[in-house]
């Protein structure tokens, strides 16, 4: 299974990033074959709005089956569901730690959003339209 982990950097040793739509990298690991690791920069991390669904689109495009994240908003949660990507939360430490936790069944399967809309935006004042 292809698991995408939200991370602050590239590769297995990168620290995880709590945010989904605005994480810096997605590190995509084949959980059956840990040799296969691909890091993709999240091109929408700085988007004015709609970063979450765009991130879901990116993951759907690379064929991820699941994503491990800290927090996810309602639009992103719905987009991930539509793309049939499973959502796991409870990540700590490095990408390698998360993959380990996943194998041991220690991550929590999510079925809905953990935070309200736009929670990952740095500047939440104004900016409409």
């Amino acid at each position, binding site marked *: 299974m292809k698991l995408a982990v939200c991370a602050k950097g590239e590769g297995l040793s990168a620290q995880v990033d709590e945010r989904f739509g605005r994480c810096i990298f997605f590190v995509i690991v084949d959980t059956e074959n840990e040799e296969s690791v691909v890091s993709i920069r999240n091109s929408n991390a700085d988007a004015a*709005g709609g970063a979450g*669904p*765009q991130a879901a689109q990116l993951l*759907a495009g690379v064929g991820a089956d699941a994503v491990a994240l800290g927090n996810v908003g309602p639009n992103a949660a719905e*987009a991930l569901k539509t*793309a049939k990507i499973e959502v796991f939360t409870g990540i700590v430490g490095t990408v390698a730690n998360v993959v380990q936790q996943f194998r041991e069944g220690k991550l929590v399967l999510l079925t809905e959003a953990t935070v309200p809309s736009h929670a990952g935006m740095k500047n939440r004042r104004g900016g*409409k*339209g």
Partner: protein
Amino acid sequence: MKLLIASGKGGTGKTTVAVNLALAMAEKKIQLLDCDVEEPNAHLFLNPEYSSEVEIGIPVPSVDYSKCNFCGRCAEVCMFNALAVLKDQVMVLRELCHGCGSCAYLCPQKAIHEIECPIGQVEAGKAYQLDFIHGRLNPGEAMSPPLINAVKKAAAVDRITIIDAPPGTSCPVVSAAAGCDYCLLVTEPTPFGLNDLDLAYQMVLKLGTPAGVLINRCDIGDCAVEDYCNNNGLPLLYKIPWDMDLARLYARGEPVVLHIPVWKDRFREIFFHIQAARKVAMRR
């Protein structure tokens, strides 16, 4: 003349100034547009009689799945991240869509058609001798610029137009400011007032609209706003002191110029200052 009355935030007396200016000059064929469509309040002072109400909507994409091949082109061309192509579905994020039509136009399969989605109403009517137009954005609706544009489109072109801008410095104000030939920035002589004035001034500079400043309740704070105007070559057109009558009538929702003649004279004076400043700016 198209005059925008703006301020970096709400609560500076922007609407009071717009309403009283318009009423003080009413014999000159004036129309007042309230472009603060999220929280219109000029009508509260004017009790207009409306003669028309028009529903405004924006065209939002709808995907025909018998034609779509999920190529992803629509999401690529949308500048507002309002579309996400997810395996076998195209998700439309209604609250991000600006109704620009690019996706429908550029879809290679012609799989997108547009459905009109209501965002609010434009109401037009008369108040005293003024032509009055405002917009009401539907509750929960985030996309105000198309409604602001509709308010402006409903206005006649052959008369003096005074526009009460939405507060802030983002998209809605920029929509309200488009096509205006002068901007009156209403502020207060406080640190907050200064901060907001600076943001608002940076915005009009970017838009290239000449601007002047009116300081409201000019005796409540410090002189930092005046210094700011001087240092930036920003004309300070008028200072309105705190005034018991003004505050009392404001609280009752009544325009001061209709009740106290000296205020009518003052607002006429403000108007002439604006006209003069605009002429100077146009000569540059």
